């Protein structure tokens, strides 16, 4: 029997504990990025399909969320940098192999587009707020600007579709590109985070929708996404299970280890299975407050990002 008794000598106070260098801002950003990507995707999709009046929450009202989410997310990202005054260095180059570089550029385009999108629906979707603020009366040039944006809205929608997908996938690829962290290093994390982002986006639309037909439509979409997400999570666990020793150790954190309760209790059960059942029951015609599954999905998505970021940094190659 071979057995490693101890490995010491790395008792370096400022290095070893600080290897866990990604904290809550990263988890929060990954969640907000996915949420914004989900809402923008549905908004652009249903606008292109010509259903903005059929699904007003998805195309108009809920799009108030992405600009706020992306702004908070970006601030969280910059807050997490230790050399923040050099953030502009991201935009002096494009590095095709670096997911973070992809993300930086996609955010640079998506964030302003999300603001323009919301602005173009501002008078339409929030007439009461406008009546109070009277922004358009005070600033005359906004009229022209709004007309210009509205006339180009279809192009923005076509741009937002690929951008939101890249944004959603990138939040996962950002982690999966690190082969030194076996928990992250699997190809399914990108699609999984995209699905989770779309699902939380759909849930946010359900929350903000006042129209029963729209809520049912997004309940159906959310249900389908939850099923896909569960399938992807099963694949992820299978991947670890069939993987090498480092992957097995990574899996043990989620299955049987210290993150088991959080993962199975809050993400799988409360974040996916319970809302899926509630949404299904509601679609069958029983009365269920749709707010409950929607909030559960959103909180589940947030906890999922926290678990993956925290647990991933505990896994490593042993030598």
């Amino acid at each position, binding site marked *: 029997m071979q057995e490693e008794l101890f*490995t010491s000598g790395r008792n370096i106070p400022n290095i070893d504990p600080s290897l866990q*260098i990604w904290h809550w801002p990263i988890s929060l950003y990954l969640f907000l990025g996915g949420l914004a990507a989900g809402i923008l995707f549905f908004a652009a999709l249903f606008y292109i399909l010509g259903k903005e009046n059929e699904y007003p929450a998805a195309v108009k009202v809920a799009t108030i969320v992405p600009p706020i989410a992306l702004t908070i997310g970006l601030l969280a990202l910059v807050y997490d940098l230790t*050399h923040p005054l050099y953030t502009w260095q991201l935009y002096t180059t494009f590095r095709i192999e670096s*997911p973070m570089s992809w993300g930086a550029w996609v955010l640079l385009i998506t964030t302003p587009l999300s603001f323009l999108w919301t602005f173009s629906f501002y008078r339409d979707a929030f007439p009461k707020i406008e009546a109070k603020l009277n922004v358009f009366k005070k600033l005359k040039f906004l009229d022209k600007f709004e007309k210009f944006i509205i006339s180009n809205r279809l192009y923005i929608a076509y741009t937002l579709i690929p951008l939101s997908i890249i944004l959603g996938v990138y939040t996962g690829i950002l982690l999966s590109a690190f082969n030194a962290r076996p928990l992250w290093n699997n190809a399914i994390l990108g699609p999984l985070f995209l699905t989770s982002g779309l699902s939380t986006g759909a849930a946010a639309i359900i929350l903000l929708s006042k129209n029963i037909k729209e809520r049912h439509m997004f309940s159906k979409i959310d249900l389908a996404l939850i099923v896909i997400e569960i399938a992807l999570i099963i694949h992820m666990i299978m991947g670890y299970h069939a993987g090498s020793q480092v992957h097995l150790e990574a899996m043990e954190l989620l299955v049987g280890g210290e993150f088991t309760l959080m993962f199975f209790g809050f993400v799988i059960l409360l974040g996916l299975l319970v809302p899926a059942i509630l949404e299904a029951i509601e679609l069958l015609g029983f009365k269920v407050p749709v707010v409950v599954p929607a909030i559960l999905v959103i909180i589940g998505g947030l906890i999922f990002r926290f678990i993956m970021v925290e647990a991933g940094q505990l896994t490593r190659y042993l030598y």
Partner: protein
Amino acid sequence: MRYAMVIDTLKCVGCSDCVVACQTENNVPHGFCRDWITEAVSGTYPNIELELRSERCNHCDNAPCVRCCPTGASHIVEGGIVLVTANECIGCGACIESCPYDARYQHPDGYVDKCTFCHHRLEKGQLPACVSVCPTKCMYFGDLDDPNSEVSQLLKNRKYKTLAPEAGTKPHVFYLI
């Protein structure tokens, strides 16, 4: 030109002279270090084996830190040395996450710092500080592309290993075993 370091684990006594030499030479801030000693004990009592290793950045050929750097601050210079340009580094930490050897740390000034194989000393024709002070002379440094160099000869004639080769990084610090 391909720089490599060869460390004889049979000669190393784990004195940490290399660690202190590096901290002094490179003005490493207090509490941090670019190289360190690992003591690995394996086996079952009474048949146990102790291995002492002086570890540092492996200056990998397939460097994940360079691949994931969003600004290009992490880069490879001639001789295969992986360096970080401090004023291009935004301190995002992606390279720290990507390193299987945990060889990088965040400098208190914000940027990410690591072993440079004492690039500034190599330019003057000197050996890295850690190699030059080793009291047991267990560390060797040289050009792998030159078949007659000391490191090439050692790797030709002795049994050696690299750390976590399964990570696919092609490390260039070799341990004689």
